[in-house]
């Protein structure tokens, strides 16, 4: 048993989740494949969104996969970093906007 929670080689085994429960895994991977197909958004746009979300959910497997995928789809390094900043801005904003809640509560409690 590996002594770390994350092993880069585990990413390649993602499909193995079907070993324990094939039906739901098949549905998920079918859905996943459909999501990333060109639609109203291009595959490249979807890949950049995935890269940003990967950082927001802080998933090392996803960051690994979507760094490769955005590079393959011809994204520039600046575009990739801007996508990460979008994630950071939303994450930061999500924390800060709760400051209003704190202020409301503080005002209610204070004289």
């Amino acid at each position: 048993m590996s002594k770390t929670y994350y092993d880069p080689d585990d990413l390649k085994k993602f499909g193995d989740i079907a070993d324990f429960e094939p039906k739901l895994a098949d549905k998920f991977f079918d859905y996943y494949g459909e999501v990333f197909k060109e639609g109203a958004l291009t595959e490249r746009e979807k890949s950049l969104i995935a890269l940003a979300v990967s950082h927001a959910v802080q998933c090392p497997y996803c960051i690994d996969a979507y760094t490769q995928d955005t590079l393959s789809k011809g994204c520039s390094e600046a575009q990739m970093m801007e996508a990460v900043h979008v994630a950071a801005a939303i994450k930061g904003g999500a924390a800060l906007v709760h400051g209003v809640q704190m202020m409301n509560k503080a005002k209610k409690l204070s004289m």
Partner: protein
Amino acid sequence: MAKSLKAQGHKLAKIEEQIKVLNGGDFESGDLPTFGQKIAEIGHAPLKPSKLEVFQINLGYMCNQTCAHCHVDAGPDRKEIMTRETMQQCVDVIAQHDFPTVDLTGGAPEMNPDFRWFVEQLTAAGAKEIIVRCNLTIILANKKYHDLPEFFKKHKIRVVSSLPYYEASKTDRQRGDGVFGKSIQALQMLNEIGYGKEGTGLILDLVYNPAGAFLPGNQASLEQDFKKSLMANFEIVFNNLLAITNLPISRFLDYLIRSENYQEYMEKLVDAYNPGAVENVMCRNTISIDWEGYMYDCDFNQMLLLKTDEKVGQHISEFDLDKINSRTIKIGQHCYGCTAGAGSSCQGVVA
């Protein structure tokens, strides 16, 4: 400027070392299936030609650039170039046959002092389409090359040029400092005399290959991005973008090993194996000639010194079309590079 592996006396300058790496590791242990095993599954072993359509001639390994990914290990320090005698042998073969395409590559083919003479002879011999794989910067490298665009136009040459990205950073990291700027200037010169423009019949194609250890994305999408960006920033137009996968040979192999990407890159190629690409893999319709006149199934086999099957002849002086069309193509693990994803060839995707 960086030196070639050969000039460095690098271990990988020895071809047997490259073959050893390619056949070792996960292929040796059986963790990855060999290319031969994969094509046997679909009845393509041994691999046979379809019909010879592309007569590709490598005019020599001399180049004004030393690109980090070059599978030829070309550079200014390489002196191997084709003589006029060997060129004449090629012209004679082309005159006697009806190949749709003659494809001139290198190195920088234009640096061969007999390049223009050769093109004139090929035209006179009735060559239909002539491709020159022009690295763009050669046009600006020396005054004597400044009129190359005019020369190309005169002979209706299809110009195929490498540009790994539409921005300077990635391009220069792969091809050398300042290469992007000069490439843009050269493309503008080609556009100026009609290359890449609708209605002129003068074809200007760009070659995209990834600047790193990843596979090329969708060729059509990349072409759109390139067209949009090159037009918006530099008013440059071109015809087609050809997406080519980097094969693990020579300097790209060295890069993969040094950057500790080799194993993962090979896994990626094997994972992306597309049986549909085998049908149109370029060695099935191509013959590749080296500077000494030896024949190979493709330019990659040329760099690995895998000459054509002995039984059908290995030198241009022994060229026999029926024999060439019935030969067995030599394969290795590097061949996975041409069957990954949408496939890859000197003409871009194949599936």
